[in-house]
């Protein structure tokens, strides 16, 4: 029983990060109908900027803020400079461009920072509280949960309650009609990219201290897990991304805890197939799928 509680809490704290990162993927998918394979590399770039700032100033939080802002700007830049000019008639084109960006960003990071792992600082202690002899969550885990919850709530609020959120949703669903109603669709698209990339940067800032450290490829594996999470949840659904992230986090934890770490990739594939064969649009897909 102790082991189960332990694995559950561990899986949830992982899953929270996957959820945030999956949310970033969903944001861009909803806004631009692009699966942003460059999300991981972009987020790592933001984390490197945070690292530079934090080392230069000695302030983790300054670096944290700069990473989020940097993520926002990078997202806007990628949209304005690259993605906007991609021919979207074939869904493959943006995917390939994103893969090209991955190569480019990782290579540039490798050239600037070298391929060594850099230590990623955690702003709170990672030592777990002990309750009844059982190590539960650490202050850092609580920070991760808190940050992810804040982001999820903030995004939900922006999209559901604010004018700009309404504009963004309208622009994503019906670009031409939205333009006729005075919505700056191009601007909303850029904003969507910026927001998603900012959330991605946050996820990277949260997850890298729990991983091997800062490295151009630091988010590769997180990307695979989070993409799985987003697909399981349904790419059109932000709540689906959150639930999917938690499911994937728990699955990975249980499988490596009870069955062996080498079975985790297989478990992920089984989960994907099981979910998608029953619901080809993910768990949270609308029942009557829209024909586009």
């Amino acid at each position: 029983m102790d082991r189960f509680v332990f694995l559950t809490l561990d899986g949830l704290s992982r899953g929270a990060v996957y959820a945030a990162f999956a949310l970033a993927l969903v944001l861009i998918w909803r806004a631009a109908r692009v699966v942003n394979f460059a999300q991981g590399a972009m987020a790592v770039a933001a984390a490197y900027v945070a690292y530079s700032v934090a080392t230069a100033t000695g302030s983790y939080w300054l670096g944290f803020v700069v990473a989020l802002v940097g993520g926002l700007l990078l997202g806007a830049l990628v949209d304005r400079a690259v993605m906007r000019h991609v021919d979207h008639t074939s869904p493959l084109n943006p995917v390939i461009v994103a893969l090209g960006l991955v190569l480019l960003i990782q290579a540039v990071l490798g050239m600037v920072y070298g391929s060594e792992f850099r230590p990623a600082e955690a702003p709170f202690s990672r030592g777990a509280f002990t309750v009844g002899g059982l190590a539960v969550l650490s202050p850092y885990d609580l920070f991760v949960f808190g940050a992810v919850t804040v982001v999820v709530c903030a995004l939900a609020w922006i999209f559901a309650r604010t004018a700009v959120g309404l504009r963004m949703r309208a622009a994503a669903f019906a670009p031409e009609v939205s333009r006729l109603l005075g919505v700056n669709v191009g601007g909303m698209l850029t904003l969507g990219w910026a927001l998603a990339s900012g959330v991605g940067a946050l996820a990277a800032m949260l997850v890298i201290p729990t991983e091997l450290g800062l490295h151009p490829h630091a988010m590769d594996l997180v990307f695979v897990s989070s993409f799985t999470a987003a697909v399981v949840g349904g790419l059109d659904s932000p709540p689906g991304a959150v639930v999917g992230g938690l499911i994937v986090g728990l699955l990975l934890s249980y499988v490596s805890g009870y069955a062996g770490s080498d079975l985790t990739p297989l478990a992920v594939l089984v989960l994907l197939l099981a979910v998608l064969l029953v619901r080809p649009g993910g768990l949270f897909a609308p029942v009557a799928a829209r024909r586009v």
Partner: protein
Amino acid sequence: MSEGDDLLVVREVVAGYGAAPVLHAVDLTVPAGTIAAVVGANGAGKTTLLRTISGVLRPQAGRIELAGEDLRGVPVERLVHRGMAHVPEGRGVIGELTVDENLRLGGLWRRDRSDAARALDEVYQLFEPLARRRRHLGHQLSGGERQMLALGRALVGRPRLLLLDEPSLGLAPRVVARIMALLRQLRDSTGLTVLLVEQNVRSALSVADQGVVMSLGRVVTTAPAADLRDDVDLRHAYLGF
């Protein structure tokens, strides 16, 4: 030629999708506070004309003026600020948004928030079925409700000029009649100018002040709607009844 009270002036406009233009030098004038109906057979270029006026399609030549101002280079999304509203064919209701959100979207661009709110209330009064279905998603509405929603959403922006593309498409005659009556009522009460594109020539001409007959991308006749209704030759030649 363009007098002070001509709200919309279209001069020698050439537009289309590929190398071959759909519109060949179209001329059109709509005086303020009137309803103009553009009629013609399928493929005459009616929808293309509306899309060109609202800027979705860039004209290859010619000019379009709204209240004396040239619209060249004005982005589509700025046209609502100039007082133009375009209800596209197929009604353009955003199915993933609720009725309320669809309506709010129509007034989001406005600086005068309180008047936008007032306009919203007025639309709900005007289209009472919408008020009952505020929280429903767009794709859950019936055809008539969708048309009301699209029209109402345009009205939230308090436009001077309303471009309406096939408002009667797929609707029961009773609903069409209601919508046509409403347009006339709006013209009379608020001075709204309407440019209406219709296949349903009878009901369009019944409500319009002015009729514009298009064929193969050209305007063949512009005349008072009543005259057109009675001109048998013209009807036979272009309108098929």
